[in-house]
């Protein structure tokens, strides 16, 4: 049996859970699939999961599981996994999974394979493809032990619309666990956004994004001119916003905005996976980079290898003809 751990916040299911379910269906072969949902109460997210009819929904409800804490989740899931004994425990590679899955794996002494983009074989015999060296290499990885393992699936690597839904709703079962609230050491406050985002890049038809290749803040006008000539918004990868060269609200990637414009032009962006997840849904992607092996070229429709300080002004001149 493959156990998928769903993710919800305030009763809303994280969309990446559907992708994890698709990956789990592929991993299961013909084997059974179950979905676990943790929280203060089962609510709408559990109904939504059951309605998809992909497998029994196990709800684990306890006041100590709301809000999310790694300690609370690990206490509950260690009990659930010990009693249900799944072959594989599957999750989406979200920030929340990154927060608790390694602790759960360490506590249960089970291998954890993270950020998986592909599966070969099924069940405990599977090998997994995952990026290494910032996406410069793809690794085939196999858990060392013959028993169960945990796997997290990279967001965007499996298509949620490929889910094979059941013909009838799945049963829901409440699983009782014992959580001592005093054993939860993290006391979270309510999530918040830093500032009202003035720029909604998700609505832009075209985006010109800059990365480390721009080298210095005073070189930004090179990219600004191209954005203007293309009628595009200016955006950036994380290191540029970290350095304060552009405001955080213009950051594309897992910690910033996710965009899918008609045209995305990546200037001097190597294409770390954290950036790619924020833009690889764009309809047409252009990459300009001096490094021919940069991972950005793997998602690009058009690529130019060369010096952006020579190519971008030539582009602006061409567009203004």
């Amino acid at each position, binding site marked *: 049996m493959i156990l998928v751990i769903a993710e919800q916040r305030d009763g809303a299911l994280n969309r990446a859970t559907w992708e994890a379910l698709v990956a789990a269906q592929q991993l299961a072969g013909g084997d059974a699939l179950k979905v676990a949902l943790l929280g203060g109460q089962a609510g709408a997210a559990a109904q939504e999961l059951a309605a998809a009819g992909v497998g029994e929904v196990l709800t684990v409800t306890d006041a100590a599981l709301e809000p999310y804490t*790694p300690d609370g989740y690990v206490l509950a899931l260690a009990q659930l996994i010990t009693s249900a004994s799944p072959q594989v425990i599957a999750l989406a590679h979200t*920030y929340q999974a*990154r*927060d*608790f899955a*390694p*602790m759960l*794996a*360490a*506590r249960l002494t*089970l*291998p*954890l*394979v*993270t*950020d998986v983009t592909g599966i070969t074989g099924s069940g405990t015999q599977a090998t997994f493809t995952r*990026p*290494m*060296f*910032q996406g*410069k*290499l*793809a*690794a085939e*990885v*196999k858990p*060392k032990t013959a028993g169960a393992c945990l796997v997290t699936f990279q967001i965007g690597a499996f298509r949620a619309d490929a889910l094979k839904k059941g013909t009838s709703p799945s049963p829901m079962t409440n699983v009782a666990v014992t959580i001592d609230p005093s054993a939860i*050491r*993290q*006391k*979270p*406050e309510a*999530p*918040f*956004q830093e500032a009202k*985002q003035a720029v909604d890049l998700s609505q832009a038809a075209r985006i010109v994004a800059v990365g480390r290749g721009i080298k210095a803040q005073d070189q930004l006008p090179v990219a600004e001119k191209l954005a203007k000539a*293309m009628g595009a918004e200016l955006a950036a990868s*994380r*290191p540029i916003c*970290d350095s304060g060269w552009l405001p*955080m609200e213009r950051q594309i990637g897992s*910690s910033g905005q996710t965009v899918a414009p008609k*045209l995305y032009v990546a200037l001097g962006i190597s294409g770390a996976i954290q950036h790619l997840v924020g833009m690889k849904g764009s*309809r*047409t992607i*252009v990459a300009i980079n001096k*490094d021919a*092996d940069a991972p950005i070229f*793997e*998602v690009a*429709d*058009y*690529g*130019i290898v060369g*010096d952006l300080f*020579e190519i971008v*002004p*030539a582009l602006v*001149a*061409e567009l203004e003809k």
Partner: protein
Amino acid sequence: MKIAVCIKQVPTREWQPRLRDDKTWIREQDASFEMNEPDAYALEESLRLREKHGGEVVVCAAGPARVQQVLREALARGADRAIHVEDESLGSADAFVTAGALAAAMAGEKFDLVLTGLQSDDQGHGQTGVVLAERLGIPHSTIIMEIQIDSSTGSGQAAGMRVKRELEGGWFQWVAMPLPALLTIQSGINQLRYATLKGIMAAKKKEIRKVARPDGLEPSQQIVALALPVRSKQTQMIAGSPAEAAKELVRRLREEARAL
């Protein structure tokens, strides 16, 4: 406050991947190495906390002899001393082995706070910090963008802290937790300092305590093969001089892709 910061040495950003003959690891002799970027931010944060609250910063690493380079660099930037779990096998170790090796070397030190980067730029499991917390029996929080130590007890002994966790899509969350604890640090939490000449000279006299790899550490996963990634798209590469390439790209964006 006694602060540990765990750092890893990884191939530089400019490194072009070349594989060993058995295709299960890289040709390390071709690589040049540097401090893992999120770890550099963790180091900087530990130095800032020491400047504010006093105490000691101990930099810890598990890896082959080459790792001394980044330990010396951390000492030059201001760390007080270093612990090096040295073993050739640790260069390609998985997160369980690395965390196990670090935990054994760090357990007796009774650190108040342990900082790591959120993930490494080589294998990128994103597990070592959290597994280390579990092995040390202390609470953790991940992807941290700010640390506020609660020093209100007056005894100079901090009892707890409040940390700002990054969530996805521009959301954040404050989390209160007791000390000792472990935090994984996000890049960009601060502005990095660089080593001064004085720092580099001083680092030569600082202690690097070498520890052997403990027995009984079993890898939890193995790399069956490494390869260049398969392209998910057929990228059309456009060659020529800058002017020629620019002209051709604009033509294709207008006529083929209809994106302009």
